[in-house]
């Protein structure tokens, strides 16, 4: 017995010594397996399951019984022919275009400001700007719904006091302004993320480039246009892709401020999916189909962004 155990130990030691270790490539695969499994569990499976549901008739009764009648592309057909989904999609595009452009412009501007090392307020601003990012989205929506209140809202009160308006404005209750009113709290909440990214990228730009350009007589604007902006392009692409995908899924501010109204003025794609899935008759198959269509659109947009902008850079 003792002799067998000794032989096994000796074999193991000689095996390790004789180079039966995993190659770096194999080791990398093995090390990634836990991550892949976890991602498959928490991301891939729900995505697959939602796709599965989108091809079936699914309500609470079906979920409880586990029997889902197959309906093929019917849910997709219903979504694509629903005028409300088309309107929601249009609103989503409009909303996303506004908030993404606003976020990039503001993020670059604010990041440039707080990047000024010699100004003490820059350091204060760097801390303060993180506050909105810490506010839960639904709380943010509720705060702004009070701000927008027609009769008692803080915003109207300030504008009235400043003499900017003589009559209160129905910011969130007027179909002409409601969607734009939603963009403000959304940008307010999500802007810090973009600022952080741009600010980090700014810190990576070699100061000597600016100093050399200044020696050659380039003014601040030309230095920004020809040095800073091109070097920020990769991070701007990242922001474009991330912020567009998040903006397409805007939900909390809609829920808290307008609930899609007035009329269909602020119905967006995520709100559509939610209402179809979680309001009677709880058509989860239809909701899944609309969510899938939205995800596909975001994916296509991301590809277009990356191709367009990197081609320009090259």
């Amino acid at each position: 017995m003792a002799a067998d155990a000794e032989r096994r130990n000796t074999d193991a030691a000689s095996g390790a010594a004789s180079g039966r270790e995993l190659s770096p490539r194999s080791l990398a695969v093995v090390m990634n397996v836990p991550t892949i499994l976890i991602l498959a569990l928490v991301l891939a499976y729900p995505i697959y399951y939602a796709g599965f549901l989108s091809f079936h008739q699914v309500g609470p009764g079906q979920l409880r019984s586990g029997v889902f009648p197959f309906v093929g592309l019917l849910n997709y057909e219903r979504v694509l022919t629903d005028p409300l989904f088309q309107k929601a999609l249009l609103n989503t595009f409009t909303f996303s275009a506004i908030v993404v452009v606003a976020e990039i412009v503001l993020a670059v501007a604010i990041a440039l400001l707080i990047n000024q090392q010699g100004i003490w307020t820059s350091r204060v601003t760097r801390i303060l700007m993180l506050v909105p990012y810490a506010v839960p989205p639904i709380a943010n929506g509720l705060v702004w719904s009070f701000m927008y209140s027609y009769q008692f809202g803080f915003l109207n009160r300030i504008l009235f006091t400043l003499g900017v308006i003589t009559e209160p404005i129905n910011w969130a209750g007027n179909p002409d302004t409601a969607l734009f009113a939603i963009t403000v709290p959304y940008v307010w909440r999500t802007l810090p993320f973009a600022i952080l990214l741009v600010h980090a990228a700014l810190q990576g730009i070699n100061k000597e480039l600016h100093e050399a350009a200044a020696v050659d007589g380039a003014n601040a604007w030309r230095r920004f246009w020809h040095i800073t902006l091109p070097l920020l392009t990769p991070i701007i692409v990242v922001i474009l892709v991330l912020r567009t995908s998040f903006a397409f899924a805007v939900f909390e501010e809609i829920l808290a401020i307008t609930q899609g109204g007035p009329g269909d003025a602020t119905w967006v794609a995520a709100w559509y999916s939610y209402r179809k899935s979680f309001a009677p008759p709880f058509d989860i198959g239809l909701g899944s189909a609309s969510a899938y269509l939205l995800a596909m659109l975001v994916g296509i947009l991301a590809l277009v962004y990356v191709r367009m902008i990197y081609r320009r850079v090259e």
Partner: protein
Amino acid sequence: MRDLPNTKYDLSRRRLLGSAAGAATLAGMGGLARSPLAATWADRPPSEVDLLNFVVWTYGDIYSQLATRFEEDWGVPVESVISSFNDHPAKLMTMFASGDYIDVSQSSPFSFPNFIQQGLVEPLDGLPGIEEYVADFSPFTKQVAVQNGQVMGLPYFSAIWVWNYYEDLLEQAGLEPFQDYDELIEQLRKAKKDGVSQHPILWVAGVGLEQLPGTWYSLTWNRGGTFFEPDGTPALGPGSVARETLRWWAKTFEEELADPESLKVQFTSSAKAFSAGKNLYRGPNHHYGLSIVNDPEQSPIAGRVKVHGFPGDGRTIGVTHVYFLSTGTRDRDWAWKLLQYLGGRTKDGEYTQAVNLAKDAMLGSGYQSVMESDIIRESWAQWGDVDAILDMWGKATYLGEVVSSVNEPWHFPWTDRLNIEVQNCLTGQIDADQCCDILTAAVDEAKRG
């Protein structure tokens, strides 16, 4: 695998004798009407459970009180699963879909047919004492709780649609409460022109099942119209009462007579907004808004808001919300016991919940005996003219007779569309003709599902 009891209640000899004995004891008792046939609310179910639950939308602390009382009476703890009114259907159906136990829950009359269709609601026929409850149901309640000949629920509360006016502003404008719709428009114009009120009327037209739709339903019904013909076809065509009512209603927004907040406010929030004292009229909406606008702790104009009936013959609409027994219950007998604590009688034989809701929140009862009792007169007097309200109550018709789709599972998605298109109309995005044409077409879409 859990057991989902589907068998009807077994009316045993012991239970029958017990009921008869209880009835004999109660015979001749005063107070709220009690049948001489049964006292089944005091019987302990034969089975044993260690926990029950109800899934309800939030309303003060009534549910924690009821849970405590149930445990004190029967020794069985009750878990309260409480969400907001708007989130309740999603919460309930998520629990149902995932196979959670649900013993008792509640529903508006609008979601109820859908819940029944989804297989969530257990019929109550044959359960001990159910006939007595049904005999005491008010007409509204019967229409909601009895579906296709089966008793599907017990009443939570009933409400009718009424108007409110702010007496001070009306006096300031030199006006008396309107007697017809032309007079109403003229009064609103005058009040605005004279600077008495910038937006003289606050409609309850926020998105919902009863808010914006309820306003249109009640106005249309009062003017002699309905939303569906007896054969189920939509009654929204050219010249229909519903279409002309909408056209008239939209005019109040076009002329900026309506408060812009109208399109956002719900039941309670409209009452609170009206309490600011900036509008002459509020409504039409549930009668119990008076308990907010005339509550000195909540309203600066408390005591100065009066209830006003609909013009003409005064016809209005009403609803009853219900509690029901779930098919996903862990024990049908015990769940029935718990259901009675919410929508029927407690162990002492009193309609405890109905009486408390009437006294604390001015909610009407789905039981005729409670509505006819002194409790209503005594407790409601602090908020309004009880005689006037009860007179209006007598002129109320169940909303389902005005909008027969309420009894259909497709009513909810159709209402979703109604909310959108009517708000589009009231904000001038489309006109009343376009709105009604869209809603007519939307009936077929909703039916297709």
